[in-house]
């Protein structure tokens, strides 16, 4: 009689995969959509904060000394400098505040800047000569050139009174965080939440259809008059749904991993994304497998309870919110928990385990407890689902 499970499983998979539209929208679409969306987001974010290389900054200045002009030449921001009188200052500020790309920066030097700084003694307690730089933080160009200019002036200032340096040698690596850890901290805060959400939404897309849908259309009754054991029907459906949900989750995950370099702006930060080995992926697969089984079982029970797919969707929403909140917890907690108890709480244990895996400090007993408890919970769920299939009030409540 074991092959009843296989028969049901095959039927569910055939139903799903021979419906090309359904298979495409559930399995390939999420991955493709996520890839496009995240890549686009990454591009948009980096486009927002960076200025075109060819851009010539429009700068007006009053009393700019030659020495500074030379420095600005070196920094590559001298192309659009225009000298204006002190009286034109108000007009310049006006142009910058309009933020219409007429002017990016207005710099006012003291009339005899070089003499003033040569004569100034910092021990005297007098007010130091001041350079005023007007900019507009709402404009990317203005903000960028302001930063370049002030940094340039800072190093100019420290060069004049150089007594000591910090981290001067360019050939020494002072930041001792290795690239693996840098990637780990990004992944472990983002991926557990994303993975859980992917799997959950996949389950949500197919679970109600397979169970409430069959109830709604009256096809489940046809199954129930056959000698097929209710527990076999339940298991067959749950395994089939888990396979589909995992495939969909995998597609979303691949989409995420491919677009993550763009999203995290890897080119600029030099972050290493390919840091995980086969052990990490195997552990991840184990956790995802047990979590998917649990989520599918939960959604199946809710779907069996609902009268229609629509109703099932309504009932599942609160569960989705809970799962979402729990999966968000991984983003705010630093590292994974060490108390075993936390690894027995459904969903939360998955988040903890995944955080541990991605940050290379997984607690092996915790990981084992998560997988085992998820399977036990799923088993209890299958038992409940079997009881529901046996209950005429639930199966025929029209």
């Amino acid at each position: 009689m074991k092959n009843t499970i296989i028969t049901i499983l095959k039927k569910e998979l055939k139903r799903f995969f021979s419906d090309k539209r359904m298979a495409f929208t559930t399995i390939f679409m999420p991955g493709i959509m996520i890839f496009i969306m995240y890549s686009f987001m990454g591009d948009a974010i980096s486009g927002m904060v960076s200025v075109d290389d060819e851009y010539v900054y429009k700068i007006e200045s009053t009393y700019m000394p030659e020495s500074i002009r030379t420095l600005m030449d070196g920094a590559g921001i001298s192309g659009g400098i225009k000298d204006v009188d002190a009286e034109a200052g108000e007009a310049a500020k006006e142009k910058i505040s309009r933020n219409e790309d007429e002017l990016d920066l207005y710099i006012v030097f003291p009339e005899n800047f070089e003499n003033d700084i040569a004569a100034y003694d910092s021990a005297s307690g007098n007010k130091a000569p001041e350079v005023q730089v007007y900019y507009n933080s709402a404009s990317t160009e203005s903000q960028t050139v302001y930063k370049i200019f002030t940094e340039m002036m800072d190093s100019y200032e420290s060069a004049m009174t150089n007594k000591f340096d910090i981290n001067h040698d360019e050939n020494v690596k002072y930041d001792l965080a290795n690239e693996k850890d840098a990637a780990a901290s990004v992944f472990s805060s983002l991926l557990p939440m994303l993975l859980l959400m992917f799997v959950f939404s996949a389950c949500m897309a197919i679970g109600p259809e397979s169970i409430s849908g069959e109830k709604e259309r009256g096809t489940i009754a046809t199954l129930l008059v056959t000698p097929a054991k209710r527990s076999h029907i339940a298991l067959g459906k749950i395994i089939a749904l888990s396979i589909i949900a995992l495939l969909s989750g995998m597609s979303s995950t691949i989409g995420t991993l491919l677009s993550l370099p763009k999203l995290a702006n890897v080119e600029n930060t030099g972050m290493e994304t390919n840091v995980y080995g086969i052990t990490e992926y195997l552990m991840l697969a184990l956790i995802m497998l047990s979590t998917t089984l649990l989520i599918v079982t939960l959604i199946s029970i809710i779907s069996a309870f609902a009268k229609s797919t629509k109703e099932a969707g309504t009932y599942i929403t609160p569960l989705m919110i809970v799962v979402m909140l729990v999966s968000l917890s991984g983003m705010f907690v630093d590292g994974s928990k060490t108390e075993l108890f936390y690894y027995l709480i459904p969903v939360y244990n998955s988040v903890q385990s995944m955080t541990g895996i991605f940050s290379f400090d997984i607690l092996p007993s915790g990981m084992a407890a998560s997988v085992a408890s998820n399977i036990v919970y799923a088993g209890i769920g299958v038992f409940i689902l079997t009881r529901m299939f046996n209950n005429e009030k639930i199966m025929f409540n029209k």
Partner: protein
Amino acid sequence: MKELLIVDKLHKTFKLSSKQQKIEHTSDKVKTAVGGISFKAYEGEVFGLLGPNGAGKTTTLRMLATLIKPDGGDALVDGSSIVNNADKVRQKIGFLTSELKLEEYFTPNYLYDFFSELHNVPNDIREKRKNEIFTLFGIGKFAEVKVADLSTGMKQKVSLAVSIVHDPDIIIFDEPTNGLDVLTARVVTDFIQTLKERGKTIIVSTHIFSLIERVCDRVGIIINGKMIMCDTLENIKAGQSLEDRFFDIYKETVGEEV
């Protein structure tokens, strides 16, 4: 003759919602759908359940098919109790009703194989039976057409074929010709005759007199959840047409308000 089906004081009640109570002008919280029905069906006969809508025919048959459980009483299907041994009963019966739908996405061919597997029918026997019944019903041409695209009559024929993949000895038909055109209804009626000739025991519920007169050996008349009369077709008719006789019985039982 062997008693293949023994129905003993089957009882089934449904809870009424307060809205339903108002509609039915009653303060009873429960409605008795089947109130202690008993009858027997012998091997190789066609037993008809005749009664108006809402009399409890379908509820009785659903209990026999183990879709719902009785509140009281029991029935033995070839010796297996529908209460204590439902799994066994499901192996022995075929059940056809408009309530059992086929998944419209699949083809008749696939569904036949699917249900054969659920009934543990060996492959060679399955192919033989499938060929035979698909030819008999003219399903062959449509074997690879999705059920959704079939006509109502063809759907009913496929349902019928699928309900007996395991060649059961007892077949329960709930309103088998409802909603069918005369041609398809004829095919179904003829098929009931064929099954009978093969020695199958058939329980058929209907409110169509001609169907009863054509195929049934014995008839039970159910009104308001009670078995009013149960006898051979000839004895029930008592020289009248079945239709006239039924109305007489109905008047005696319920009163004049037909």
